[in-house]
C-alpha cells in the first residue's frame, strides 16, 4: 500500500510517555476522517503496545521505544511500536487472552484489546533483540458533503 504521510518518534521507556504516545497518534490520525470511537480505539491499541514495550521490553531499565505512524492509501492508518529490548520467547502464547508475565499489575488483555480494536496486528519478535508490533486500521467510509 502506498504511503501518503509518515512520522516517526523515539522516546525513553518511561511510563509517563504512554500518555504522550496516545496524544501523538491522536494528532496524526486527525488527518483521517475518523469517528471519535475509531480514534479512541486506535489510542487504546497504541497505549497497550507502548505499555508492553515499557513493561516487558525493558523490565530492567530504560530503553528506547520507537513509534512510527503512517497513512497509507485507502484511508488506512498504520502504527508501529518497536523496542530493542528483551523480546518475546513465544509470541503465540503472549497473544493468548489473560496470559501475562507481569503479575497482578497486568491483566494479560493487551493483545486481545489490540486485536479487537484494530483490523490487523502483526508481531515480530526475537529474544534478546526486541519486538515490533505493527497494527493497521482502515477508516470506515462515510457519506457526507465535503
Amino acid at each position, binding site marked *: 500500500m502506498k504511503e501518503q504521510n509518515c512520522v516517526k518518534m523515539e522516546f525513553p521507556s518511561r511510563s509517563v510517555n504512554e*500518555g504522550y504516545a496516545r496524544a501523538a497518534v491522536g494528532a496524526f490520525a486527525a488527518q483521517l476522517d475518523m469517528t471519535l470511537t475509531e480514534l479512541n480505539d486506535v489510542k*487504546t491499541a497504541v497505549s497497550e503496545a507502548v505499555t508492553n514495550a515499557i513493561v516487558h521490553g525493558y523490565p530492567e531499565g530504560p530503553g528506547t521505544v520507537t513509534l512510527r505512524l503512517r497513512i497509507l492509501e485507502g484511508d488506512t492508518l498504520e502504527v508501529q511500536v518497536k523496542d530493542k529490548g528483551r523480546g518475546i520467547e513465544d509470541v503465540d502464547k503472549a497473544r493468548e487472552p489473560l496470559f501475562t508475565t507481569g503479575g497482578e499489575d497486568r*491483566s494479560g488483555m493487551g493483545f486481545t484489546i489490540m486485536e479487537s480494536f484494530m483490523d490487523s496486528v502483526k508481531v515480530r519478535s526475537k529474544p534478546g533483540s526486541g519486538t515490533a508490533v505493527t497494527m493497521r486500521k482502515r477508516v470506515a467510509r462515510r457519506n457526507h458533503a465535503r
Partner: protein
Amino acid sequence: MRLLTTERGGKLTVALAGELDHHGAREAARKLEESLEAAMPRECVLDLGGLKFMDSSGIAIILRLYKRLQAIGGRLTVVNVPDQPMRVLDASGIDRMIRIEAEQNQ
C-alpha cells in the same frame, strides 16, 4: 489519576478520574489497597464516571479489587462507565464476572 473514596455504613465508594493507564494504575492500586484495608467493606462501588481514558491496566485494577473483595466476603459493582472504558471492558469480557451498572443507585 485522581481517586476519591467515601465510606458509609459498610459501603465503600471509590471514584476514579483522569487517565487510567499503566502509568496511573500503580498509584491507583496502592490507594485502593489502603482504602480496602481501612474500610473492609461489605460492598464496594467503583465509579468510573470521571475517567477520560482507560486501557487494560484498568482491567487489572478491577480484577484485583474484585479478588480482594471476594477474600473478605465483599461485593463489587462498577458504575458510570464512559464510552471508551466501556469498549475496553466489553473487549475483555470482564462483564461476565463483574457487575456493571449504568448509573449508581443511591
